[in-house]
């Protein structure tokens, strides 16, 4: 082959064989070193990612520490007090309570189903509102906490997880115990005399409400089509069961007027009359549904617990429970229940307060609180609240349809 390169008519001198400029080599070396460091760091990220997933994979991921005592402090002491003394006139004492000295199934059944009705401990009658722990504690946890309270203040007979499992299977579908009298009649007749139960309020739901909730009407889509057949909610769709009736109807009014922002709920709320909003509120306020919430935002549950119970005054955050009631059960009419709420919803609402999307808070309290919470604090407190047992509904009302709640 012939090289046709012109060899004789060079018109301008060129530097032959220009090499690789030194800066190019330096840049290449610097980038290569950076790349190796990046790849090495890769390993650490994978380890952290795995530990986050294994945290999330634990069935009840709150590490409560020392067995029954730890569970008691985390779950019960807010109301019953760490020493079991209760709160005069509001929460029955555990110390020397006849219910703890009775047959072991009594305490287990109360833990599993909660109480909603009058109960006598010693000489005092209390209006009992104890939540059900069936959906948030395992059989083993329930056995440990039952043993802890019975050994501390009642009998010393040991309860096993298998025993709890048997008790759980005994009344799979029932709601809360209707006060001390039903417990005495069903479980242990040797209990001291108990006040008469509250008359059953929830029999017979207005078929119009049931139709509205389950099938919708006009432009209003059925509530149940997103919030679930029992108002249990899911993902960022809030749980409605057990929220104060007035709170629900106020929110519907806010959606309708546009002072609370949500495209879908605005359509629904505008299609409902004031009367319908109130009826729907009453319906959900009386609905008793096991918790289907679980932590899902990688939140630090210990931090969340501190925020909920004590707040963080250094940053101007009051305890959630100081307004939303002990155990986050809500205070009618204005403060919604937080317990057992889905974390994506709670965190998203807190973020919305901070972003000033909401404008319906009395004195902008929630805006101020949310402004003081960091991103990780929002996720921490939302995840913690999801581990709490659901609010015991104010009065009994049976759900319209089947009881099984998809988790």
């Amino acid at each position, binding site marked *: 082959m012939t090289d046709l390169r012109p060899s004789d008519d060079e018109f301008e001198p060129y530097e032959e064989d220009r090499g690789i400029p030194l800066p190019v080599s330096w840049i290449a070396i610097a980038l290569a070193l950076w790349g190796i460091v990046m790849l090495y760091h*890769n390993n650490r990220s994978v380890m952290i990612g795995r530990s986050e997933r294994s945290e*999330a994979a634990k069935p009840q991921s709150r590490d409560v520490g020392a067995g029954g005592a730890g569970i008691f402090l985390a779950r019960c002491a807010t109301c019953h007090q760490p020493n079991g003394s209760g709160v005069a006139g509001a929460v029955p004492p555990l110390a020397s309570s006849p219910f703890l000295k009775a047959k072991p199934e009594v305490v287990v059944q109360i833990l599993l189903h909660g109480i909603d009705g009058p109960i006598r401990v010693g000489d005092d009658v209390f209006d009992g509102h104890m939540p059900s722990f069936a959906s948030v504690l395992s059989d083993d946890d329930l056995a440990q906490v039952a043993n802890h309270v019975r050994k501390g203040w009642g009998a010393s007979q040991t309860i096993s997880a298998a025993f709890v499992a048997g008790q759980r299977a005994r009344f799979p579908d029932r709601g809360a115990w209707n006060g001390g009298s039903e417990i005495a009649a069903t479980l242990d007749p040797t209990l001291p005399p108990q006040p008469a139960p509250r008359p059953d309020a929830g029999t017979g739901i207005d078929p119009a409400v049931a139709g509205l909730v389950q099938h919708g009407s006009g432009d209003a889509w*059925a509530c149940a089509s997103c919030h679930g057949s029992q108002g249990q909610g899911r993902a*960022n769709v809030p749980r409605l069961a057990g929220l104060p009736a007035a709170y629900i109807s106020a929110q519907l009014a806010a959606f309708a007027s546009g002072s609370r922002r949500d*495209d879908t709920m605005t*359509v629904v709320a505008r299609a409902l009359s004031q009367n319908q909003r109130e009826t729907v509120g009453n319906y959900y306020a009386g609905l008793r549904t096991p918790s289907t919430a679980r932590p899902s935002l990688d939140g630090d549950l210990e931090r969340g617990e501190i925020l909920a119970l004590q707040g963080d005054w250094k940053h101007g955050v009051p305890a959630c429970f100081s307004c939303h009631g002990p155990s986050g059960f809500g205070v009618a009419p204005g403060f919604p229940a937080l317990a057992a709420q889905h974390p*994506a919803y709670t965190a*998203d609402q807190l973020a919305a307060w901070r972003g000033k999307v909401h404008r319906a808070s009395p004195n902008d309290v929630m805006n101020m609180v949310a402004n003081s919470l960091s991103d990780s604090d*929002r996720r921490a407190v939302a995840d913690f609240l999801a581990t709490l047992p659901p609010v015991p509904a104010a009065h009994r009302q049976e759900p319209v349809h089947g009881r099984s709640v998809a988790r």
Partner: protein
Amino acid sequence: MNRILPLSILALAILALATLMLVVVPGMQINAQPATPGLQPYTAIQLRGRQTYVSMGCVYCHSQQPRSTDQGPDGERGWGRPAIASDYAYDSPHLLGTMRTGPDLSNIGARLPNQAWHLAHLYQPRSVSAWSIMPAYSFLFEVKERAAPGDVVVRIPNGRGPKHGVLVAKPEAIDLVAYLQSLDRTMVAPAHAERDDGYAKSER
């Protein structure tokens, strides 16, 4: 650099190395993981709906891969837990997407399970969200004088529906909604799942 054969062979060898690193080895790693426990294969109806999702090009505006909480607020928006490789064991074509002109849809079935909502929104997205720039899929519906037995009648809010007759969803629309309702990846992720943990940072 004056010989064609060595040049071609070396060029193809480099491509083979890239294929090994980006396709073969990650594939072995991903395929070693069983489907996420609780993940259901699609039913025939859901698969038909998925085909409509594919053919309408929904993937060009909607991702299906929530990020981790260390990276973004996907979890707080209700889009779901961080996506892992085994969530897609039944997906072909994959629909991970690279654009979020609209929200992520990995868990749309969990956070918006309402068929009537989806049908109205598909017919005219702006009947629900005035700000939406999603195309209307009105051609998946038909207007009839009156509904025949078995017809799924769709009601469009805010007066955005047809002025006369009843609006009936065609089977493609019903199947598409069935697919959207099936998108639910809320099951717990195993610790040894594969995903890009590059943003993971220890908070505690």
